[in-house]
């Protein structure tokens, strides 16, 4: 077999398929219809109060830290009511009044009030946080109430945005607002949340490792109950 026949054979086996350039039919699909969306009366986010209103004469009560309000996953307010767009917290944290103002102003400026509406999915700050005063020595009782906060758990929907708009339009400013929050958060759409849930279920099914944290903890393997905290026992080391 000489070089020519060998090269011909190689060319035959490794020939690239010919690509014929064709132009197809132009398709201009109809724009999406927003007939099912009902705009509420108030489209902008309401002003959140700095201090909760107590009945007159009642001294504002002080409260323990109660970090348990930030630990674990949110089981109730973890879905979008209007099934459109929103901001979801990825870890636990606390929202102060200043964060509320930041969100209200940023979204108020960026959104189109004719086509979109926004609403809060968290309470106004209610949990008192006390501070002793700078340079104060220990003792003399609990410090005075400095400010109020709203504790947030992982997976909580902070605010929702809806209306006659696409996710591409709102994603930009929602993401910017999410990045400014004191905890990890992300801008989401209903489809994204569904996708994430499906992926979690799929991962659970496709996991080949028979030893999951849940299995190990439930069976007290390796005597792990000795060093596991009650939160780990409940959430299987998934959240802090």
């Amino acid at each position, binding site marked *: 077999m000489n070089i020519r026949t060998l090269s011909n054979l190689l060319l035959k086996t490794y020939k690239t398929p010919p690509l014929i350039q064709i132009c197809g*039919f132009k398709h201009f699909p109809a724009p999406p219809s927003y007939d099912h969306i009902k705009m509420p009366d108030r489209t902008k986010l309401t002003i959140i109060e700095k201090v909760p209103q107590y009945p007159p004469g009642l001294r504002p009560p002080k409260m323990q830290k109660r970090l348990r309000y930030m630990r674990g996953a949110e089981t109730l307010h973890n879905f979008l009511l209007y099934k459109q767009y929103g901001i979801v917290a990825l870890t636990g944290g606390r929202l102060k009044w200043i964060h509320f103002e930041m969100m209200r102003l940023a979204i108020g400026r960026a959104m189109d009030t004719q086509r979109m509406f926004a609403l809060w999915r968290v309470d106004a700050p209610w949990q008192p946080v006390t501070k002793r005063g700078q340079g104060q020595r220990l003792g003399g009782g609990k410090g005075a109430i400095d400010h109020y906060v709203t504790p947030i758990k992982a997976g909580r929907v902070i605010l929702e945005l809806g209306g006659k708009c696409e996710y591409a339009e709102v994603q930009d400013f929602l993401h910017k607002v999410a990045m400014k929050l004191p*905890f990890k958060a992300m801008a989401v759409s209903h489809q994204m949340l569904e996708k994430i849930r499906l992926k979690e279920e799929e991962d659970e099914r496709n*996991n080949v*490792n028979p030893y999951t*944290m849940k299995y*190990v903890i439930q069976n007290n393997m390796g005597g792990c109950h000795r*060093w596991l905290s009650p939160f780990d026992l409940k959430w299987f*080391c998934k959240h802090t």
Partner: protein
Amino acid sequence: MSLICRKAFLLERCKPFLQPKRLKSKINVQKPKAPHHEKATFLAFTKPIFLNPNYEKRPIELCTKGEQLWKKDEDNPFQRIIAGELLRWFQSSRLVVFYHMNPMSSDDQFKAYALFQKQKMHFKNYGKETLRMALEGTPYESVLDFYISRNMIVFSPELEVKKLLKVSKKFPQLILLAAIFEGKFISKDELMEYSLIPNLQTAQAGLVQTLDRVGSNLIQNLNSQQNILVGQLQERAKQLEEK
């Protein structure tokens, strides 16, 4: 004694001694503490393992290069309208001719279009998808087999085969494949035969001649001997005259 009594009471309730565990350390939600060695070992051990779904796939199956190219529209209303129009063209024209189109410049294409237009013929180009939409389920379905590469169709309301062939001769890039003549599929050779027929009268005369041929052959055979004799006698007479 008391022990025996106790053992006798098999349903004696056990009152466990409870000591609540108070966690002294306060957690920081934003900056969680790194897990201790044992916990870290358990976390690493229980990490999910996924099998690679692409493990036994060949490179050609994994290639996503051409996916965007072959993406098809689910439903294009404009294409449906054009397909309907195409079917009406098929049904209304007496002669439909199919060409394979080798690459030709738009100038040449337009010239062909213009020349066909002068003969009142319609030179059209459709894609396979549109054709499939129009002809699937109709008697014209076998036309789809022609559509492998680029194709052109000529619709003619009149049966002017000679003029059509004259125009298409000028464009070597248009290769005639087949035609539909009065609702009947014909090949290229049959179309050439049809082109040789000048008009109806001549065709009728030809038919009459074919029918007569048997009788005339018989007469010829019967008279052949006499004719030969007559011919030879005439030759002999000529020879005698020359002498």
